[in-house]
């Protein structure tokens, strides 16, 4: 069964491989030597002008005295820097969940006792059933230097179990470890139990204790079936067994400080191993994490680093109240980026999760985290050795050592330095090469025409959406703008407006069917019209959009 699935996925991949952004180099030989490169085999170590020899997907030798065998393919990486391939904590890379239309519109007879599938209680689901290596997110994470990822399904309070996969290499056999944990969230069901955090907490206890009870009875039955009723089969409860036996942890989605406390409360009640994942607000929890012996994966979906120019408060002539507010906002912005250094100082190992963050933004986020106090060695550990050890895979991944999987990344400068770019990524011996393109200067013609009003038409899953986009350039050359859409009939402010070459990009948020959606837009401007796409952040879902400029009214 599984074989057939992978064969299918392989076909799928081949179909789509033409779309991948990386240039995949055809292997002539299974032996590759990367020469004359600065090697960081693990955090804190450094080998200057070394060679890494890879054979058949494994690292065969590392050092300055490595003999390159004849026939090996040689990759000259002079002046470049080689690291262990990064390992991503929890993410939805490569995962496409089936649309559960039924659950979205369901009206059950007794909302207090709905079917599990509709209530978001599906711990028996295996994430690898939804894995498709052809998904763009796999190639994107790989291009960002990530070679291994923890993947999780999504939907409801118990979406299913997690796996660890390779983000490339042998694409029809990407799973390193099939069962690595149980993914849990505080997301309630729509109009049925458990709808709120109250219900989720109570139901978690209920299910867990029922599972504990069922497991014990099942064990007793196995020991001595005589005179005992045959245990009932219950896939939902059975999914908890590996957690109850402490064989795998619960990965709890805990973005907010209160969610993290609630997960730790459940851990204290029920006794499972806990990984706080997607954690954003952890700066006040160092002691709690330590005393409950929980593990941490920080979210990289951090608020935009947007340090105000120092003298801006003077020129803006703010009230004292507003100045004070801006000061507090800055102070809290810093906490998001400096908390990792606090955890490192407290000796708490952590890694990073990759939900709701664009892979291409990760390097910038990591550099800001390092600027805010985390040593680059500690940052590297969070990307390599720590996640490897936490997954119980310390012997096969996480460092550049003989015998480990050949998962590497090679950058033109030290990775945490500004403007460092990734040139090669290797996964299980397979080499991916990337262009070191500089970010493009804004096209002068586009800069000229972009200010003003544009109309657009987008083909969304909810039907055609039309509206207008207004872009304004201020004296300092900064852009601001708004977008109106016909679906919600509202106008939203544009964020992160950028022009790179002839491409205008920006983001905005809309609330649609009580869901808050962040939409990222990228438009290629040609003359007085544009074409491009809008993407719902984090979903991988995108739709085409086109439009044209509204002629400026003569004054």
């Amino acid at each position, binding site marked *: 069964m599984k074989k057939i699935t992978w064969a299918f996925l392989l076909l799928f991949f081949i179909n789509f491989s033409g779309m991948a952004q990386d240039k995949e180099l055809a292997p002539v030989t299974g032996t590759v030597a990367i020469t004359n490169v600065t090697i960081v085999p693990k955090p804190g170590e450094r080998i200057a002008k070394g060679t890494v020899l890879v054979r058949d997907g494994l690292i065969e030798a590392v050092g300055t005295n490595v003999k390159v065998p004849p026939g090996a393919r040689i990759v000259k990486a002079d002046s470049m820097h080689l690291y262990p391939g990064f390992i991503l904590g929890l993410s939805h890379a490569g995962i496409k969940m089936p649309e559960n239309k039924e659950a979205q519109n369901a009206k059950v*007879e*007794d*909302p*207090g*006792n709905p079917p599990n599938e509709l209530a978001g209680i599906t711990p028996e689901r295996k994430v690898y059933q939804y894995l498709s290596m052809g998904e763009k997110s796999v190639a994107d994470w790989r291009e960002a230097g990530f070679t291994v990822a923890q993947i999780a399904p999504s939907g409801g309070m118990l979406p299913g179990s997690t796996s660890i996969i390779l983000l490339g290499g042998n694409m029809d056999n990407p799973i390193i470890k099939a069962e690595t944990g149980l993914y849990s969230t505080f997301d309630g069901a729509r*109009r*049925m*139990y*458990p*709808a*709120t*955090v*109250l*219900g989720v*907490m*109570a*139901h978690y*206890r*209920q299910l867990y*204790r*029922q599972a*504990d*009870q069922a497991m014990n*009875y099942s064990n007793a039955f196995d020991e*001595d079936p*005589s*005179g*005992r*009723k045959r245990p009932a089969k219950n896939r939902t409860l059975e999914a908890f067994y590996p957690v109850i036996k402490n064989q795998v942890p619960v990965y709890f989605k805990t973005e907010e*400080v*209160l969610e993290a*406390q*609630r997960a730790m*409360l459940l851990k*204290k*009640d029920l006794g499972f191993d806990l990984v706080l994942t997607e954690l954003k*607000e952890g700066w*006040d929890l160092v002691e*709690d994490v330590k005393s409950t012996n929980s593990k941490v994966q920080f979210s990289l979906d951090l*608020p*935009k680093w947007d340090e105000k120019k120092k003298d801006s408060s003077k020129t803006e002539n703010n009230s004292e*109240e507003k100045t*004070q*507010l801006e000061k*507090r*906002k*800055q*102070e*809290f*912005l810093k906490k*998001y980026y400096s908390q990792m250094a606090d955890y490192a100082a407290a000796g708490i190992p952590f890694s990073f999760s990759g939900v709701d963050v664009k892979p291409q933004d990760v390097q910038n986020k990591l550099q800001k985290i390092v600027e805010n106090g985390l040593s680059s060695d500690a940052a590297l550990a969070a990307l390599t050795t720590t996640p490897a050890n936490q997954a119980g895979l310390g012997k096969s991944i996480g460092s550049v050592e003989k015998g480990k999987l050949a998962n590497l990344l090679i950058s033109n400068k030290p990775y945490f330095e500004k403007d460092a770019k990734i040139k090669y990524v290797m996964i299980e011996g397979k080499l991916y090469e990337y262009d070191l393109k500089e970010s493009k200067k804004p096209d002068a013609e586009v800069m000229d025409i972009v200010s003003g009003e544009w109309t657009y038409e987008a083909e969304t899953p909810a039907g055609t959406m039309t509206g207008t986009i207004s872009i304004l350039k201020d004296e300092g050359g900064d852009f601001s703008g708004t977008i109106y859409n016909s679906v919600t009939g509202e106008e939203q*402010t544009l964020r992160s407006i950028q022009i790179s070459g002839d491409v205008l990009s920006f983001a905005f948020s809309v609330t649609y069917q009580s869901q808050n959606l962040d939409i990222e837009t990228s438009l290629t401007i040609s003359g007085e019209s544009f074409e491009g796409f809008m993407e719902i952040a984090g979903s991988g879902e995108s739709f085409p959009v086109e439009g044209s400029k509204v002629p400026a009214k003569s004054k």
Partner: protein
Amino acid sequence: MILQFVVASIWAQTKKGEVLIKNATVITITDGTKENTDVYIKDGKIAKIGTDLSASSNAPVVDATGQYVMPGIIDAHSHIALDAVNEATSPVTAQVWVGDALDPFDVSIYRALAGGVTISHAMHGSANAIGGQNETIKHRWGTVKMDDLRMEGAPRTIKFALGENPTRVHGAGNNIVPRTRMGVEQVFRRAFSEAKEYMEKWDEYNANKNKRGYKGMAPEYDLQKEVIADILRGEIIVHCHSYRADEILMLMDVFKDYGVEKLVFQHVNEGFKVAPELAEFGAGASVFADWWAYKFEVYYSTAYNAAILTKNGVTTSINSDSGELIRHLYHEAAKTQKYGDLTDDEALKLITLNPAKQLGIDDRVGSLEVGKDGDVVIFKNHPLSIYAVPQMTFVDGVKYFDINDDQDDMRIYVDPSEDIDVMRSRTEHEKCMANAEWFLTN
């Protein structure tokens, strides 16, 4: 181990303070009002009440000459500091617990402190006949820890509800029992009967499980029935949302049938009609001073309610059920002097010792006595005067509010990406039905 629903967690050590309040008019509630008297709080507890007291050299001293000191005000019905109020999906949700949804970031806590309120009863809403378990919280503003808000050692309580709310949500909204007041009674009787059966099954299993050769299966664990069984065992105080006299009598009859004794009625607008019956049962009553007619079942009301209940020997309190009313409960208490001529002590008991009794914490708080918790508030002018203004509020001897050090932005966390004016937020009355609106609009 699996049998017992243990209220989780080892509470972290909360802050305990020391303070000497000098030369105040001290309203003790249980031992009269003392002029020119000092109150000394040490390690979070009231250490001494008297004249010319001295404290350790580094204890903060507050000169309260001409001011009034009274016990911290206690609100027996509120929904502040909660992320979620109603799990409105079922007529019985005894398994849920608002202690799981505490929100120490709710600025309403600070506002309550500014009104002299040191303890509130964070309640589940009234969407369900048997709602969730509540949590008695101390207003330790500034902490980000849910556990710091819990009043360690306070008894467990649970929310019940009668009348329009549960029948609208479940009967009218979802076409399930209860659609009528008769149905509400049946929900209680069924829940109690099932929990009793569950309890008996477990008792039988536990009595036999260690016997040789016993191979029976344990009854399936059910958190909801565990909690209702604890009500039957007398381990949980029931606080029931109620208005009409007939349904108040009905609930007391149900409780008598099942031997449940710990009962406090909330709102109880028609309590004045059945005050002797309430007193006989020993049920408490927690009421509004003068608020009614916001829906059909609340038309027959009177501002004399609290006074009539008090005079009939019912343990009565005045509550807020609102993030706004909670800031001036002392005014609400004073209304009973216009409507019912209660004495100062009787009126102040409505917001101190009596709510403490209703929450089962009167051995710890509710009056100024040596050994009780250092929860006090200092007023400029007598607290029952229309000119009363709280000056400082202490919980466990720690000062959490000082009118002379009241910053503009008291929020604990600030969202760095917020771009709207967040300083204004809406305060709702009767949050009882929060999180349940969508059932009603169906």
